[in-house]
């Protein structure tokens, strides 16, 4: 917990910086892109044929902007006029009608058409890459090496000192004892024993406490699913996929049909997006990973239909609590208002998820000690109205807040039953 504070602060700073930097884009295109994402992206891509045709170059195919706008707003009406191009298109695409979008205003339509007719910019230097502020380096090795060098220097100096003393003693005729080699010197031996004991003991105790705790556990998953791409870059709300987190005990790994809500149309990982790497440096082909999803869910992207051959994905579970611990997500998220990141770390910046907290009992208990419940006031939960004693104390000014532990949050049977 204590170690995390500066990291959190830096992370926040980095995050703010990223937000500031990302305001550089053109406003109109941004707008067009937003409209495109909101309305069109379910069926269209700029470059690839999906449910509907790829849109890039539509200005050459339909030079009349008004006609195009009319088509977008109400395609059946255009078809009814007998327009040859659109009727051909309609027949060519299996007579799947394009739904009308009458609510797009003229200004928005301009922005949208500008966006779909402009080829997306090539890799922008200073785009995603630049946003990645240099990671905090772990300096402990450096310090360790320095300490070691200093210790060796100190030893040498000590040795030199004693040699010099011996020389000067010899010169002045003071008799000196036969020099004892340092490995037989009892002071050294005692010192080394003590140091070994302390260091050894430290690691034994640390290791013992760490049994069964897996902070930083980051297994390789059957499908390379990047939380950063989804929750970070694309800003998908955590609850869109982990919808159990508000409802029940488990947050739940989403079922594959949830993935397909978007991936029905998003079939490839754009080459222009940030390149994906595993921890060991191997590059990831995002499109191939999406294909793995299709295979699992039994989706034929060419025929655009389900084959019915399903193979459930066996994800590796990262956050494991022992069987004797009861943990309920909804208690913490819906009732307690705890952010996902509090326990799971900065997920939006993790490609592959790793365990952020050690999930130890001490970690839970500390949070229960410190966290204040929504006891009183406008956002106070009415459940707590039965705690008359605390309400009286707050009124009398004897107490300013109620922590989880005050309402029995440290009782064993809060979690163990």
């Amino acid at each position, binding site marked *: 917990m204590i170690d995390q504070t500066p990291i959190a602060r830096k992370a926040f700073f980095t995050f703010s910086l990223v937000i500031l930097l990302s305001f550089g884009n053109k406003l109109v295109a941004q707008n067009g892109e937003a409209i495109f994402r909101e309305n069109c992206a379910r069926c269209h891509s700029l470059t690839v044929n999906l449910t509907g045709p790829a849109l890039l170059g539509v200005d050459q195919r339909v030079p009349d902007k008004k006609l195009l706008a009319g088509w977008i707003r109400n395609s059946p009406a255009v078809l009814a006029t007998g327009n040859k191009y659109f009727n051909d298109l309609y027949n060519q695409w299996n007579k799947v009608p394009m739904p009308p979008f009458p609510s797009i205003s003229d200004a928005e339509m301009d922005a949208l058409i500008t966006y779909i007719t402009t080829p997306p910019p090539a890799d922008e230097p200073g785009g995603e890459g630049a946003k990645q502020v240099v990671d905090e380096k772990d300096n402990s090795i450096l310090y360790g090496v320095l300490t070691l060098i200093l210790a060796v220097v100190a030893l040498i100096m000590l040795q030199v000192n004693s040699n010099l003393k011996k020389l000067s003693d010899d010169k002045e005729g003071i008799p000196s004892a036969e020099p004892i080699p340092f490995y037989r010197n009892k002071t050294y031996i005692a010192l080394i024993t003590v140091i070994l004991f302390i260091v050894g003991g430290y690691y034994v105790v640390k290791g013992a406490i760490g049994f069964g705790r897996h902070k930083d556990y980051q297994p390789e998953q059957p499908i390379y699913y990047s939380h950063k791409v989804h929750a970070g870059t694309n800003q998908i709300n955590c609850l869109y996929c982990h919808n159990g987190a508000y409802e029940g005990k488990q947050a739940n790994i989403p*079922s594959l*049909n949830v993935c397909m809500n978007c991936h029905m149309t998003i079939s490839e990982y754009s080459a222009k997006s940030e390149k994906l790497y595993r921890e060991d440096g191997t590059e990831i082909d995002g499109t191939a990973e999406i294909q793995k999803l299709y295979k699992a869910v039994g989706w034929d992207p060419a025929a655009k239909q389900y084959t019915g051959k399903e193979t459930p*994905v066996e*994800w590796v579970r990262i956050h494991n609590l022992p069987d*004797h611990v009861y943990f*309920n997500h909804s208690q913490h998220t819906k009732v307690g208002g705890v952010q996902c990141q509090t326990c799971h770390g900065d997920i939006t910046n993790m490609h592959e998820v790793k365990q952020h907290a050690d999930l130890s009992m001490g970690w839970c208990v500390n949070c229960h000690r410190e966290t204040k419940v929504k006891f009183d006031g406008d956002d106070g939960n009415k459940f707590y*109205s*039965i705690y008359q004693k605390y309400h009286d104390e707050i009124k009398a000014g004897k107490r300013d807040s109620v922590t989880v532990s005050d309402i029995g949050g440290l*009782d064993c049977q809060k979690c163990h039953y």
Partner: protein
Amino acid sequence: MAKKKYWQSFGEFNNSEAFKKSTENEFPEELPLASADDKGLANAPASRRDFLKYLGFSTAAAVAAASCETPVRKAIPYVNKPVDTIPGVADYYATTFVSGNEVLPVVAKVRDGRPIKITGNTLCSYTKGGTSTRAQASVLDLYDTARLRHPLAESKAIGFDAVDKLITDELAGLGGAPVVLLTNTITSPTTRQIITEFLAKYPGSRHVQYDAVSYSGMLLANEATYGKRVIPSYHLETANVIVSIGADFLSTWLSPVELQRGYAVKRKVNPSNPEMSKHYQFESMMSMTGANADERFTHRPSETGAVAAALLSAVNGQGAGDLTGKLKAGIEKAAADLVANRGKAVVLCGSNDTNIQIIVNAINEAIGANGTVINFNAPLLTHQSADADIVSLVSDMEAGRIGGLFIYGANPVYEYFDGQKFGEALKKVKLTVSFNDRKDETTVLCKYVLPASHYLESWGDAEVKPGYYSLMQPTISPLFDTRQFQDSLLKFTGNNTTYEAYFRNYWTGKVGGADTFNRALQDGVIEPAAPVAATAVAFNGAGVQAAIDAAKALKKNSGLEIVVYQSNSLGDGKQGNNPWLLELPDPITRATWDNYAMVSPQLAKSDAFKGNKIDITNTGQADEYEVEPGKPVISLTIGNKKIELPILIVPGMQADTIAIAVGFGRSRDIGKAVWSKDGGTLGKNAYPLLSYNGSTFDWYATGATLEMTGRTYNIAQVQVHDKTEGRQEVVRETTLAEYKKNPKAIQEERDKELKAWGGLENFEKQGTIYPIHDKPGVKWGMSIDLNSCFGCGACVVSCHAENNVPVVGKHEVTRFHDMHWLRIDRYFSGNPDDPESIQTIFQPMLCQHCDNAPCENVCPVAATTHSAEGINQMIYNRCIGTRYCANNCPYKVRRFNWADYTGADSFPDNQRPLVNAGKLDEVVLMMNDDLTRMVLNPDVTVRSRGVMEKCTFCVQRTQEGKLRAKKENRPLDDSDIKTACQEACPADAITFGNVNNPDSEVSRVRKSNEGRIFYTLEQLHTLPNVSYLAKVRNSPALSSHSSEAGEHATAQPEAH
């Protein structure tokens, strides 16, 4: 108030030396340290050196084990998640429990696709959410390892398509020989319709309904006197006087849940107007219902007719005739009460004899019960079988007149009084098909077996009373290759629709639209808008005199008689392989797993027991009988039938009557739960003791001869495990008259007892040197009304299911290792030699969640502590198994996992060696099968070996309820939390809630019943959070008999 002496056992009654010794040693287990010789501990086989070696080795082993890699755990989500399903959040489906003749609307709790708990359907007007032990336990039957997993043709596995073809061909080849459908009573309207269609296709065929426990006598009597061949509803909630002649209506008779509910209404005492119904019981054995009666009289089983006739005569003002003694006085008293409460009184009779039931009808007619308490407009449709039908079927079969026999839900080879004959006759039938779910005694003899699905896997419906429907819907896909009976019948009728479609179609048409149907399916019940009121039905008394003469002639004046009864847990034995039911102690004998011969104390010391006389008032003999689990085995001969059973001496039995329960003595094929260690099965089949009297089956036998075999047989009783060492303040009771005179008598008595520590008012502060802790917010409390606890044990099974309480098996129960978190203690009082004087009291005993808990102080590792909500918490992962807490618990409610009963230990299969060594029963392995483990509640830890456990006040439910309230941003409500025991109780004896909230149900009950409330062993200053309401009896007096030997046991215990 006179001090009353209560006793659970005869040792306690006599306060014998052996009993005292056994109380000192709660778990009579020798330590394995074999240092009995005087060589000192160092020379003992297990020396200190050994200890150190083991210590070193185990540490090294633990380190080695711990350094292994952590296992990688997988999480596999749905590919396509059904909408509205959230893994980890339970769904509830209304459905209908059907087993034998018991039909109850229930709700199944389904967690992640698995039904794990049954609760009653509160929308049902006649059960109001009450359940029975069997309904509670039925979810375990779904996961029974002995269920057939596919159809069988001549004992070989086969697919449904193939077997359908074989059967259809054989049906076609019968050449017109009739096909008989043999089922138990079918309450399902759709199934009845399908059966009609099936019969129409095979002319000459017929449907025979056969119930193991039939009410044929009642049906015939009602036909004779009322012209209606039905069984009426009994509205006990309107009866001020209930006279039962051998009807165990609170436990097994007719429709116990409904009857318990009605009965409880008039048994609860309203402090502002204390009135109760008066319940007389005339019976031969000690039944659970008899134990609840205000006045109880015994008679010989053959005398039932004479008793009924005497009662009729007394009701008509002509005295109780030729009966004598207490029985005569009792009948006259009961008759006077019945007459005085005309229109508000009823007589129930458990006899299956038509003549006796005709007399009972005449009595009910005379006291105006017809049209008031007895409702012929809403008859019960759950018992329709006529005993004569099966008898004529068997003779038809023997004569080769039956071409095909389809058996569903019936098991005549076991249940028929002459099962062997049925088995022989079965061989003469060309085509035999069984639809039963396991290889039961009848099914193994059938050519084809098409196992039907469990009710939790099935569609269906039930019409319990005309117009009162309960629907059944599947809560899980069939686990095995099974098919519903109805589907099979449709196939053989040549109808290609599935039963589901048929069912939907039927009900959509009936209720008018798919939406209404879906709503009905969601509610589970369809009932008439207004309850069907009772009206008097014309009575025809022409046959009464003949019936009286016939019934009186049955009386025998000498010799031993046997009464056969249904046990409270197993009933007719349909769920015979259910470990939860088998391990549920009998309310009266407190015995588990077996059946036995219940004999009276008088008989045990009579000459019939020559060579082994047991006088239970004689200290030495009582101890010899009682301390060891091995009970003497007797051999009973009745005509050409012979049965050998161990005895249990039960006070309150009629002197010359022996009672034996049905439902035991099954074949090994029905499942591992009934396996005994000797390679046989537990108990003996008592159905063969029944006899056919020409129109109905008699459930008693006369002229039995008894012989001692000289052998003993272990009976696993929990009766004397948990002793309270003569402390008298465990239960309290009073009579209605005394309560009316001084409603505060019990309060004053308590105050007097606590005088030394400041009286009632200051006891909490002055009785201790510990500080008093604040209890802000929630404080859980429970109140149990001893007036409405009848001892049925539905709560015990419910607790078993909810809390993953392990099944330990007979051998472990014999060693006092039973694990029930909730037990129902049974105390007798009165003179064992006088059955009429015996008064019984049931007290549900569970962790009292003491605010000043003796167990908490002694735990060296703080594994049991007190929560801010007043719950005495038991933390399994912290417990190291010292058992100090159990030792220090005055209520003896803590349970220790002596072995790995649940397979929770890290090492797989470590029960197998124990089973092989005979230290555990096979049933423990059965309960650990992957299939059976699906019943476990995922919200409750499965405890491992060496860990203490006990009632948690259903903490998983209190947590869930609080969370629900918080999510909905509102204060806690009584409806948020119901404990498993509370939910199961048909009589609402248990209330639970937040006692800090003055408006909660439990607070209101405690406040309004100040005069009756008491805490068990209150003077110990344990400050329990479970309060009891003292039992009020509508008896003339409390039986105050105390033997000489018992005097000192009643003395005030010294303060502990």
